[in-house]
């Protein structure tokens, strides 16, 4: 083959390499999103689904669209309240995950190399069993007759405190969310921490930093990219979670995810469900943008790299 010919096939190959994933993303991501955005302006059909976006009569073709869904979403306090509650739950989940994952990731990083891979495997081991089963397991752990709850209440009674209910409370929802999302915080943090040069720690100690100051001054700022990645991976799905609050939260624990699934499955109001989903998406995009923008400015962030 001539040189020019082989260059041409190279270019074709490269275009295929970039083009195929782009096409897949367009078909599987952009198109559904557009359909969803369109749905927010449509009317619900009588038995669920969507009414046609246009109709034609003797005068010609008419669009049959509305802003009603947005008005309804913005107008009723309950939706905003649930939105706010979801935000609080997701934020708490992210914070608790970070607090639990950080020491764990550090422990794995500093473990002897022989057992390090095993520890990482243990972190992702829960993924091997079904998600719903794992959440139902929490239901029985936190249930009123469980060993855990009775033990806790026994202990509280000892101090003269009243028995507490765990299941179907915000506490149960957050415990479930933290449990489900913890690996998503541990893995990026671990990936970040194991790229830290151990010599940095020696250098910091050598130059007069106590172990705590070494952590605050070197380890923590250098791990910001890992923390941000983990936080996004936890916060976004936690914000949209619906199975966990459904199973562990009871009536009072509903989150946006429940609201959306209710609109689609029970109320059969697809347009309004889509509206809430679009609002959620916009909000998530905003949060992701905000977090990466802040992280870029922090010491270990991308604005400082290379």
């Amino acid at each position: 083959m001539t040189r020019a010919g082989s260059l041409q096939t190279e270019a074709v190959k490269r275009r295929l390499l970039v083009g195929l994933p782009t096409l897949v993303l367009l078909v599987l991501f952009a198109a559904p999103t557009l359909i969803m955005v369109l749905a927010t302006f449509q009317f619900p059909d009588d038995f669920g689904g969507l009414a046609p976006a246009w109709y034609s009569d003797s005068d010609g073709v008419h669009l049959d669209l509305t802003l009603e869904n947005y008005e309804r979403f913005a107008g009723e306090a309950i939706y905003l309240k649930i939105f706010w509650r979801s935000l609080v739950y997701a934020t708490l989940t992210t914070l608790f995950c970070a607090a639990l994952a950080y020491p764990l990731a550090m422990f794995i990083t500093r473990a002897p190399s022989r057992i390090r891979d095993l520890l990482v495997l243990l972190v992702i081991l829960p993924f091997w069993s079904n998600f719903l089963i794992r959440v139902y397991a929490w239901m029985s752990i936190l249930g009123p007759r469980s060993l855990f709850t009775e033990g806790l209440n026994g202990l509280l009674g000892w101090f003269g405190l009243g028995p507490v209910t765990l299941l179907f409370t915000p506490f149960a929802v957050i415990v479930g969310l933290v449990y489900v999302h913890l690996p998503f915080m541990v893995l990026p943090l671990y990936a970040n921490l194991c790229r830290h040069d151990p010599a940095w720690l020696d250098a910091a100690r050598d130059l007069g930093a106590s172990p705590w100051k070494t952590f605050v001054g070197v380890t923590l700022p250098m791990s910001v990219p890992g923390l941000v990645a983990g936080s996004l991976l936890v916060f976004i799905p936690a914000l949209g979670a619906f199975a966990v609050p459904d199973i562990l939260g009871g009536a009072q624990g509903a989150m946006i995810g429940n609201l959306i699934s209710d609109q689609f499955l029970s109320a059969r109001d697809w347009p309004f469900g889509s509206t809430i989903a679009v609002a959620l998406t916009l909000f998530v995009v905003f949060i992701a943008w905000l977090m990466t923008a802040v992280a870029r400015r922090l010491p270990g962030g991308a604005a400082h790299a290379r």
Partner: protein
Amino acid sequence: MSLLEMRHITRRFDDDTVAVDDLSLSIQPGEFFTLLGPSGCGKTTLLRMIAGFDDPDAGSLLLDGEELAGVPPEQRPVHTVFQSYALFPHMSVAENVAFPLRMASVRRAEREQRTREALEQVRLADFAHRRPDQLSGGQRQRVAVARALVNRPRLLLLDEPLAALDLKMREQMQIELISLQMEVGITFVYVTHDQGEALALSDRLAVMNNGRVEQVGDPSDVYEFPDTRFVADFIGTCNLLDGSVGQSETGLVYLDVPGLGPLGVASDASPRTGAPGTLAVRPEKVRIDARIEPATHENRLEGTVHDQLYLGDVTVYRIEITDGQLVEAMLPNTSARGERFFDFGDQVQLAWRHDAGRLLAD
């Protein structure tokens, strides 16, 4: 009083590796002291114990007469320049250099002032706001030195700080390190496996082997008067001629070297006749010519040129005396046009003074 006193330091790893073996050394205030030894001889292990990252299994370390055991690294007035430099990538050059001052809670104005001075000392004032990854290897090395010196430690440890630099840069940095050390007057303990570096930089040096000190002294002492076979061989090149002690007179011992006959060597020791011994003589001390007049106080041998190694400034000739017994002689290339003095197979004579050689007991 010596600044740092190491007494019978031993450090073992996994029972069978003895990285540092009953080592004792004392380091004087203000000196440039070098630990020289081959890879794996325990230099880094020793340095880590001085810095406080590791504890000796036995023995004690005293700084200014005070025991260091139990003092964590951050509380030792000892700073280290690491081989990898270990600069903090998320901090600018100035922030890196200011780090020890910040840890010591030095006030901001003074901190900035001293950081600037330290950067000027290593000629990096213009690079204060760069990130470490925007610097060349030599510049990073200078940042690491400035950072380790800025808070005026009692002792500066340098672990092969020039190993990652190319030859030209290394030579330049050697000169800079010497003048910097004189300027700041801080005691340096420098680790290297490069004998040239050790000779060029040090006030005193210790040659290490297998976790032990083989010899301590100033560079010319160690070079000219190696105490052991290892030192003679490790520093520079050396002819090592094995034989047994023959007759001896005051200040002079004759060593019977098989194939070469008795060779005189100045020695204050009076070893037992028949004891094994080695004569060490540096190639540059050996004269070589077509004919050399016999002289007292000299050893004289005859042989043929076996091969020669042209090194530009000097040529090393290897002369075969008897079957297989080779002696190296080094000759500066002083001829105007670079012609060689001798060729393969030439008959030549060698000579060196009795006091140019050294009798090694082991």
